[in-house]
């Protein structure tokens, strides 16, 4: 194996930083995007060029940022509801076989109902405010939290439970000392999925009945055929999702440093 020059090692180490690789990949995507448009002569009313989108991001920065706020608030509020109620329902399901047999099938059934179809109902019930958006975000984000939390609670090794029971631990002690900490990695996985879905839910709520938010901006720019603005709005939405996901990732690292998934080791290619 040839010895690596110090320069090559520096490059390899800088690639380890979290943001470098996604950024490089993004640059690649943008380049391919631009090249394909030129190569295939795609008209601007079908796909805007990267430069047009970047320009729109710059010129519409004001409205994009102001409209991002209500969307983010609705998404975060909906997510918090999903997290709290999702974990509560999961505790009930994991704790009792009869609750599980009554509730779980109904929960799964409710997932097949498209939330886009129910969202207008919320507007009819609750008006045009932020509540329908929050409810929409909550309903979409709820299920992943329940499923992953139930899995986490139920996947404790039977021998561990035997050990706890032999110590005369009661059910509450077993839950607090064993089941809940054990389920944290699974719960975090569910929360990460849920938070990105909450953003989707907030936008769905805005599509259906709102006059503010990124979803509203998106709809308006589609209606006016302002494709660069539409793409710019999508970029902002993705950034909101990324930011929320990253916050959860940091929380995860602080809460469950003991889990195998959190024990990073600096990998320097030999």
């Amino acid at each position, binding site marked *: 194996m040839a010895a690596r020059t110090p320069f090559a090692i520096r490059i390899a180490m800088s690639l380890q930083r979290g943001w470098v690789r996604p950024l490089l990949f993004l640059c690649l995507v943008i380049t391919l995007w631009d090249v394909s448009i030129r190569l295939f002569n795609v008209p601007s009313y079908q796909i805007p060029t990267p430069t047009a989108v970047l320009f729109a991001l710059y010129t519409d920065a004001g409205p994009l940022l102001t409209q991002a706020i209500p969307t983010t608030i609705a998404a975060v509020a909906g997510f918090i509801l999903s997290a709290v109620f999702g974990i509560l329902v999961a505790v009930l399901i994991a704790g009792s076989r009869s609750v599980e047999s009554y509730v779980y099938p109904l929960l799964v059934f409710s997932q097949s109902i498209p939330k886009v179809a129910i969202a207008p109902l919320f507007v009819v019930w609750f008006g045009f405010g932020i509540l329908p958006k929050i409810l929409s975000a909550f309903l979409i984000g709820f299920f992943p939290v329940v499923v992953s939390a139930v899995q986490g609670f139920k996947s404790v090794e039977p021998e561990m439970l*035997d050990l706890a029971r032999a110590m005369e631990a009661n059910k509450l002690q077993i839950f607090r000392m064993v089941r809940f900490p054990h389920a944290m990695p699974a719960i975090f996985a569910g929360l990460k999925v849920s938070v990105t879905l909450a953003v989707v839910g907030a936008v769905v709520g805005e599509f259906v009945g709102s006059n503010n938010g990124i979803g509203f901006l998106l709809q308006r720019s589609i209606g006016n055929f302002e494709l660069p603005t539409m793409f710019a709005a999508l970029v902002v939405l993705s950034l909101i999702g990324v930011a929320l996901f990253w916050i959860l990732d940091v929380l995860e690292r602080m809460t469950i440093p003991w889990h195998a998934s959190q024990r990073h080791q600096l990998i320097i290619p030999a």
Partner: protein
Amino acid sequence: MKIVSNNESSLRKQATDTPAIEIAGVSKVYRTHDGEIPSVSAVDLSVSDGEFVVIVGPSGCGKTTLLKMISGLLVPSEGEVRVEGKAITKPHGNVGIVFQSAMLLPWRSVLKNVMMPVEVKKLPVSTFEARARALLKLTGLEGFENNYPWQLSGGMQQRVSICRALVHDPKIVLMDEPFGALDAMTREHMNVELMRIQRETKKTILLITHSIPEAVFLANRVVVMTPRPGKIAAVYDVPLPSVRTLDMMSSTAFMAMTQKLRHHFSDAGID
């Protein structure tokens, strides 16, 4: 060669002391969808205070079931299990259990793992923390109190598990193939360690193993069980001194004992 327990002295002991564990006519039948599966059938065994009894038997002969019944995790279908004279019908907490895998809580430090029974039973923390630290020192883990399980080797994790089984000062320690997951050298070392721990803490230990040499090395008495449904085929006194070293594994008494035990299994057609 001093005989560890001859009939006369053990009879005298049993007359005056209540045995630590008494298993009287115990059977266990598991009821499943496919019908009844007998696991253990008509077992009688008496273990005195401070004795080290090892159970050997083929897979599925009900050894683990027996252990669970002693701890109260399972209830016998027939017969009675008594610990210190009291019948056992549910977990009674006067046991420490060590399984084949250490089963440590990965989110807790070594010391907090050892303290788990103290927390569960709501015992005074300061007194028992001193005991926990002393036990960790006894098992050679001093300095690792604040490490996490994933930072320790398999043998070290198993030693933490043993400390946890001892911290609340139980009458009995039950061990289900505790060294099965360790490599051969660590296993031998742990056998010597375990003997030392038992000498110093004077606990009554019931250990299950598949290894005949391990059984002979550790035990005061070896109980041989038949295949399912498990019954006791024989109980042997081990004619070795109470303080044993690994060198004794090549002595004639040791070899003779292991041969006797092996014949049980080859006679029954099990290799």
